[in-house]
């Protein structure tokens, strides 16, 4: 629908434009600036062109972190999406328990992310943590500070606890939107519970699931606070994901140039994935018409 142009609207948007310019656009330009320079100190810098980009693409540590990151995001999706759908299916649609369930689900989402890390750090400690101690008592040798596998599992479980609710809430809203008549018709057709899920609920959740996958992928790909607080990237570098490595380079080592180049590449990867998802969603929307 094309509306007549109204110049006054620009004035209303101006404050936001200024804020976004200062908080996002200008810093981004600064990063681009740094990515092509070698910086020894604020006064001493040299233009080096694409040298940093080449270095980043040849850096073994960065590739290793990328591998770990992808594995992590994949695991997150494989666990959280089906689990989220499953929980959403069992939630009540009407009645007093609805509010209770929704509140319980929202709680993990409201906890500050570094606090999430802290909670799990203590909870999983093999000596005084409730879970850690219990697992060891049951006969399994569990120590997330020593064993890379244990560290991975702990980080995964923490993320599942933290973020599955988001998938649940999205799927729940999607399920609520399905008119009753579909369920009634399925009952009359004698469909089993699984058939109802496969032929009615899942197709109608397509749009919602795409959003859920996009959100979870992007968030997990950029994850920083929780694993950093929990494991600090260790043991060794077994749980060092991309954003942590980037932060170490930029803030720890003060390699601003390579860090800037790295962050631009990171940004571009996420942009690429988002674009692919957006196209998929748009095509889905068109197919439904």
């Amino acid at each position, binding site marked *: 629908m094309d509306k007549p142009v109204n110049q006054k609207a620009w004035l209303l948007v101006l404050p936001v434009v200024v804020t976004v310019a200062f908080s996002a656009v200008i810093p981004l330009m600064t990063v681009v600036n740094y990515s092509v320079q070698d910086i020894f100190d604020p006064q001493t810098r040299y233009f080096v062109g694409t040298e940093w980009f080449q270095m980043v693409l040849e850096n073994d540590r960065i590739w290793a972190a990328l591998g770990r990151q992808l594995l992590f995001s994949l695991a997150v999706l494989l666990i959280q999406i089906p689990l989220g759908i499953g929980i959403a299916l069992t939630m009540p649609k009407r009645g007093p328990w609805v509010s209770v369930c929704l509140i319980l689900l929202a709680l993990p989402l409201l906890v500050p992310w570094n606090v999430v890390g802290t909670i799990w750090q203590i909870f999983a400690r093999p000596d005084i943590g409730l879970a850690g101690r219990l697992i060891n008592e049951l006969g399994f040798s569990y120590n997330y500070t020593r064993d890379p596998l244990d560290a991975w599992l702990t980080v995964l479980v923490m993320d599942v606890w933290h973020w599955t609710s988001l998938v649940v809430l999205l799927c729940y809203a999607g399920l609520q939107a399905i008119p009753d*008549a579909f369920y*009634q*018709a399925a*009952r*009359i*057709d*004698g469909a089993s519970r699984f*058939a109802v899920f496969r032929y*009615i609920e899942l197709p109608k959740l397509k749009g919602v699931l795409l959003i859920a996958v996009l959100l979870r992928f992007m968030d997990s790909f950029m994850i920083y606070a929780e694993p950093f607080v929990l494991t600090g990237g260790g043991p060794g570098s077994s749980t060092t994901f991309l954003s942590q490595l980037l932060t170490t380079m930029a803030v720890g080592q003060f390699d601003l140039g390579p860090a800037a180049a790295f962050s631009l590449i990171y940004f571009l990867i996420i942009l690429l994935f988002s674009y692919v998802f957006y196209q998929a969603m748009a095509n889905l929307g068109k197919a439904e018409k």
Partner: protein
Amino acid sequence: MARIQLDRLAHAYVANPGKPEDYALRRLDHVWEDGGAYALLGPSGCGKTTLLNIISGLLQPSEGRVLFDGRDVTALPPQQRNIAQVFQFPVIYDTMSVYDNLAFPLRNRKVPEATVRRRVQEVAEMLELSAVLHRPGRGLGAEGKQLISLGRGLVREDVAAILFDEPLTVIDPHLKWRLRGKLKEIHERLRPTMVYVTHDQTEALTFAEKVVVMYEGRVVQVGTPQELFENPAHTFVGYFIGSPGMNLLPVRVDGGAAVVDGQRIPLDPDTAAAGGRHPGRLELGIRPEFLQLGRAQTPDAVPVRITAVEDLGTAMLVTVTLGSHTLRVKLPEGGEVPAAEGWLSFPVRWTKLYADGQLIGQGGRHG
């Protein structure tokens, strides 16, 4: 196909119903004969959808029983009652082809594939869907989707009844009669018991052999379209059926005639006698189609003033005033209408008398 009986059935959505108003469906006993085509006609909120859902098993009645061929099915869920239902807006399985949609109810019941193929092809041919059998279901228009819904009911050979909940709501208005005709054809060929819920009198009257008129949770009259039109048992039926509805005049009975604003309107002897006996509120009812309007005075005609004339193409609708009351007269196309004043005749055969809303005298059950 089955004979469906409703025994002392009533339903209230509230937990402890006290007054009649608490009931969405008031106490009713009714039989739907095997192979009949019925319509449940009534305004929104009259309880027709509640009744339909009780018959199909989607809703458990708070009182009474539902019997299929004498068997008590009140506690049985829909899938064990062998009914099929077509909803207000098309319900199809988006991911499946038309063929798979029609096959779905049979496959769920583990019917052998050869039988499935035969039944689906038979039903598709009846519904003229054979050409699109292998297209995705969601590609069809609203009419096609409703036919698929109907087809899913017809494929099952053991179906006891097919229920329709205002199925033409989403169909293009000028195409509605096509789907109506198809439903009628199916009924003529297969004679399933069909129950059709609607608020549209044209749909109800053209589809059904017997129409159940409902109002505020009660069944007001059951009859053929002709009976409902010619002999409405209740002023509500007179009002609800016919376009426009029946004219109603408050009258009192004196001798062999009804009297309103000093004018005498003749009644047949039975009706007049019944009217004389009733102390309550009396109303004279006559349909606009039966009134006769002329320029010249005829015996027993009443003088009226013409206030409006509408040319509806196939008929003329004339609004007249009789004393302080307004009446509407439906005349055939091109009929002669007096300019300002005329004489209105009430054929005795079509002049009905109602006491407190109920028909009395000739044709009525009371009096």
